[in-house]
């Protein structure tokens, strides 16, 4: 998909600005506060209805305005045009509509214009707690498969309800049994999907990393289920759902006494461990800052390829300040790669200036000047 035009009204420091974009790589430059990141943010809002930064909608509204409007014009890979309008009003809330079918919900919006985002926050993918990598995987899968979204919802509900029953103590055995069944069901679906995801993801990641060639051992996303301590035939190449179900049931049975004592469920995909590794060791322990940055980019390209294949729609890449903290060799490497891949996926890159880029003329360059700078910054 291609974003062809973006109209911003009272969004961050953009009072009334229209941008036209071409397919390929778009480079947005300018000093801090001129609204480079806001352009990427706006496209992300058109994709999933919210910003990729931890901000509320009120904070996105221009100073002294009562709301913002983002109108995004996109073109499908096959040529059809689509307009997505997100209107936010401090009093009335958010309204989403598309030229295809009028008003819509955030749920329905997700997946329409798939986006892959890379910001400095993503370094947490390597050094942060496992929950961050679980939710990374969940987000990709939920965008691609609504059945996965449903399984996550069932799992979360059943887990909470079951924990409550465990806290209530004895005398609810037949009820505990049905919540356990529900949790096993949802857990099986989640584990199976995650398993399939990781296998496919690693295949693409391996190819991508080889092309990027950043002198690291093979990068993989390793998937472990430490809570699944009985291993009867479960951890084979093709995950056997029936074996998994039987094993989970056995574990649930065996742990029941412990669970009553601790008043929480001791098994399930909420305890899955995902780790990005180089060779057999966690990536962040062996990779330099520069290598980590390139590895993140490789992971995001892999995410894009996965989504493209699953949804049969080319995602849009949003790379916020990716050249920061890189030496000139790595900047050159990343730059070439972005330009090459942007033929497949339209890529938006923000940077303070184009000076360090050798091939800056190959980008569609949008310099934001001081004139656009707001007093708010």
């Amino acid at each position, binding site marked *: 998909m291609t974003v062809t035009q973006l109209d911003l009204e009272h969004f961050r420091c953009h009072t009334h600005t229209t941008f036209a974009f071409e397919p390929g790589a778009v480079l947005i430059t300018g000093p801090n506060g001129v609204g480079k990141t806001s352009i990427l943010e706006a496209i992300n809002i058109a994709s*999933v209805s*919210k*910003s*990729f*930064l*931890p901000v509320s909608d009120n904070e996105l509204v221009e100073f002294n305005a009562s709301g913002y409007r983002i109108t995004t014009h996109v073109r499908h890979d096959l040529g059809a045009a689509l307009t997505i309008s997100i209107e936010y009003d401090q009093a009335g809330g958010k309204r989403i509509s598309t030229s295809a079918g009028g008003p819509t919900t955030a*749920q329905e919006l*997700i997946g329409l214009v798939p986006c892959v*985002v890379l*910001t400095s*926050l*993503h370094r*947490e993918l390597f050094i*942060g*707690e496992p*929950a*961050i990598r679980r*939710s*990374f995987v*969940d*987000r990709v899968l*939920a*965008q691609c498969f*609504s059945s996965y*979204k*449903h399984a*996550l*919802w*069932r799992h*979360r*509900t*059943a887990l*909470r*309800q*079951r924990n*409550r*029953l465990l806290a*209530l103590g004895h005398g*609810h055995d*037949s*009820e505990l*049994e*049905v*919540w356990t*069944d*529900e949790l096993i069901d949802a857990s099986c679906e989640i584990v199976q999907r995650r398993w399939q995801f990781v296998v496919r993801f690693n295949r693409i990641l391996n190819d991508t990393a080889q092309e990027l060639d950043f002198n690291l051992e093979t990068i993989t996303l390793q998937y472990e289920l430490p809570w699944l301590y009985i291993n009867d035939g479960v951890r084979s190449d093709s995950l056997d759902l029936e074996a998994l179900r039987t094993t989970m049931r056995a574990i649930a049975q065996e742990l029941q006494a412990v669970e009553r004592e601790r008043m*929480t469920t001791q098994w399930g995909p*909420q*305890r899955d461990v995902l780790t990005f590794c180089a060779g057999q060791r966690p990536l962040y322990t062996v990779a330099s800052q520069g290598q980590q940055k390139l590895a993140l980019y490789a992971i995001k390209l892999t995410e894009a390829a996965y989504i493209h294949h699953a949804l049969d729609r080319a995602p849009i890449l949003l790379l916020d300040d990716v050249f920061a903290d890189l030496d000139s060799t790595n900047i050159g490497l990343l730059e070439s790669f972005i330009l090459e891949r942007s033929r497949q996926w339209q890529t938006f890159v923000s940077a303070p200036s184009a000076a360090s880029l050798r091939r800056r003329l190959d980008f569609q360059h949008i310099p934001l000047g001081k004139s656009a700078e707001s007093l708010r910054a």
Partner: protein
Amino acid sequence: MTIFSPAIERAIEALSSLPTIGRKSAQRLVFHLLRQPNEQVQHLADALVALKASVRYCSMCFTFTEQDPCTICTSPNREREILCVVEQPSDVFAIERTGEYRGLYHVLHGSLDPLRGVGAEQLKIEPLIERVRNGGVTEVIFALNPTVEGEVTTHYLTKALQPFGVRLTRIARGVPVGMDLEFADEATLSRALAGRSNVQ
């Protein structure tokens, strides 16, 4: 801080205890009522008192009724060997409006929901098992809400009713609504950055 007289305050408090009525709406309703003629307000009060005095649960199906058993349970035109299990009396009215169903009902008054303190004994599950045990029922249709709680309750009842050898079916439902999951890994990232720990 109370700026209204005690009588107004009492009315606002009573009204705002109703579902979907916030304090602001309650205030609006109270001032509206104060502007109405006496008879009108008396009429409303009488209707509410009569409602509570005359409407009760049907002793067979547990829907709301003014005569016990209810008109559905006593109708000679219904197929008495089919029971449709629903969560709320409002579900009975919803299914009745379709005009497609000719059997009897059984209202559970909720679904299994430990977080809200609802277990099997808080629901009309025992009377349902009793009805099936007493015979004359050949089919039980589950028409509970498409929530995780509704699904689990259906599962629970299926297990409980299986020994009686009656036909157990469920109505087809679309994709569940009301999912409010957060998928933004960015949100998780920012939480982690803020130093808060994640609950499992």
